[in-house]
């Protein structure tokens, strides 16, 4: 709680205290905490004098924000049209199977969160998987396992 408050203070200092700064402030909070903690959202509501329900409205409307804590590594699979015709849904299914979670869920050990995005603009590399900002292009179904093991080498996945 305490550390959240001090982190929030350092974020809010970088912005003018105006209502129109809501989205940039939420983006900074998302970047800092990896999600939007409930308490911090209340702090935003108080600081900008925006009713809490309106802050929540904005936080839940946009896809860049997550209201639940995310795993250590975020695996994002591009589901754009070009990647779709190149087989992205099958790649997604493979990751779901290997991680044993659904989209927007986190593995039990908090290592991975699985997400999708509707086009990264790197279509020549499709199908693409992004992990922690690094792009892995021309993904194949059989490469998924190896890629996961790269980040979680010692544990065996449940099948």
């Amino acid at each position, binding site marked *: 709680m305490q550390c959240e408050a001090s982190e929030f203070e350092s974020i809010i200092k970088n912005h003018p205290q105006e209502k129109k700064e809501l989205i940039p402030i939420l983006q900074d909070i998302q970047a800092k905490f990896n999600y939007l903690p*409930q308490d911090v*959202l209340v702090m935003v509501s108080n600081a900008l004098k925006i*009713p*809490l*329900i*309106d802050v*929540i*409205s904005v936080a*839940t*409307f946009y896809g860049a924000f997550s209201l639940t804590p995310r795993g250590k590594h975020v695996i994002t699979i591009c589901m754009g049209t070009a990647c779709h015709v190149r087989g992205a849904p099958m790649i997604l299914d493979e990751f779901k199977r290997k991680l044993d979670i659904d989209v927007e869920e986190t593995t039990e050990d908090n290592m991975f969160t699985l997400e999708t995005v509707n086009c990264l603009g790197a279509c020549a590399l499709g199908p693409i998987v992004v992990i922690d900002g690094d792009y892995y292009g021309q993904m194949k179904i059989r490469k998924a396992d190896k890629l996961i093991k790269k980040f979680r080498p010692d544990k065996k996945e449940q099948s």
Partner: protein
Amino acid sequence: MITLKINRLEVRAEEGQTILEVAKFYGIEIPTLCYNEGLSAYGGCRLCLVEIGEEPRTKLVSSCTYPVEEGLVVRTDTKRVIETRRMMIELMLSLSPNSKIIQDLASKFGVKQVRFKVRNEECILCGLCVRMCAEQMDGRAIGFQSRGYKRKISTPFDIRSDECRLCGGCIYICPACQLRCQGPQADTTVCNACLTMDPTCLDFYDELQCWMYDVGRCGTCVREKTEKSKSKEQSTKQ
């Protein structure tokens, strides 16, 4: 003063008025659901659609939010409007078949079937409760969250809100909560009983049984028929 045409009638309006406001003033009926005079206009239910412009460049707009313009040509009951209106009602019925208001709309505009899988969610996201809470009661305890098919109305974090004063305004204004339809159920999800031209109470009584002559709102005839038919069925079985 702005002059425009509604259904070939030349009408006068003030700058800033909406088509719906002007139509109401002139007694021209346009069905609405998410519109309430005491609250801001929302334009979400798409029931109040009217056709504006002249062939071939016409389009449908929600009359509750569209501002009047000089020379605008408005028609409230073209084929396109009626077909679209029917589809909107059909969509609403599949979400909230127990709402008497929606069932009555179905009867009135000739919607006889629901071809969608019934979801029984009750809430049609008309937003009346949100606007009631924010504008009339100054509570701001509930609001819209998420978008698209996941859109919902709730309190922050889905828990009891500190802002909620338990005033009941949201329940009062909700078209799904207000009046529950008690008509014949499930097979078709279209009741069609109250507002049909042939009230069923006349099968059993000499005169209309509507309370206080509030035609169609009491549901007596439907309830009676259902109960009497059930007992009739039982007696014929034995």
